[in-house]
């Protein structure tokens, strides 16, 4: 059946007119990120930086140590994620984080136009 596509939902009412277009939801941003390919590029950039600074090797070492203790056959992906997450998030080098945040903010600024 041919139906005209539904109109986009009206922006939520805001007190300040300037904020109407400049306060998109996270979901919209995510869609834009993915569709433009920027998300993939950002992820690759992050992965590259983390590899260079040895963060990934540290995480792999943690996994190996855990696997050795728990036994190769008893390990689940979930286990490993829980092993890595807290330490991993804490040990991100500041320079890497700053660089990524900068790029993300630049993207947000460019899409806000």
């Amino acid at each position: 059946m041919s139906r005209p596509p539904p109109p986009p939902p009206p922006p939520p009412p805001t007190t300040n007119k300037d904020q109407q277009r400049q306060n998109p939801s996270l979901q919209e941003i995510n869609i834009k990120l993915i569709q433009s390919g920027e998300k993939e590029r950002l992820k690759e950039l992050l992965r590259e930086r983390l590899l260079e600074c040895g963060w990934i090797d540290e995480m792999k070492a943690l996994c190996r140590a855990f696997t050795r203790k728990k036994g190769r056959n008893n390990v689940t992906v979930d286990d490993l994620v829980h092993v890595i997450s807290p330490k991993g998030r804490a040990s991100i080098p500041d320079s890497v984080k700053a660089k990524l945040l900068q790029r993300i903010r630049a993207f947000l600024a460019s899409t806000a136009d």
Partner: protein
Amino acid sequence: MSGPNEDNNTQLSSHIFGDLLDSIIVDVASECHRIAKLGLDRNLEEEEEEMRLSAQARARVADPSNSSETNTKYVVDIFGQTHPSVATEIFECMNCGRSIAAGRFAPHLEKCMGKGRKARLKVTRSSTAAQNRYLRGSPVSTYSPYSNSTSTNRLSNGTPSVAGEEYSNGTYEEPWNKT
């Protein structure tokens, strides 16, 4: 005006960064999981093996009931070789000219050259040679790295007879200092 917007942006950015990071963490975890399950990380098992073997070796060393003599005959080193507890290669003592086993060389030299009363009475080469050695005892041993190159240089140039004593001291001192 743009204050709250910037805060929002900062919050969004952090959130997006967190997403990216989580995604990478999951990637790394699943890769390690795969390696673990497929047994691709051979180091994992080798390390277990090595840890077991080193624990065993440590237990054996710490075990006081093992006498060192009998044990060294059967213990295998990291290259898989066994060595007799007393080194068996035979050398000629440069002092007295006798054939001595390498493992017995140091005690032999003690008697032959140095500390013993009987050794002091022995005159093997010449009295001056023995005197020089005793007088220059410790300094010569510290010279040994240098005397190595200098004495060989001099020897290759042809040794004048006058300095023959020195060279012979040099050559006599350095080999056993090196060992």
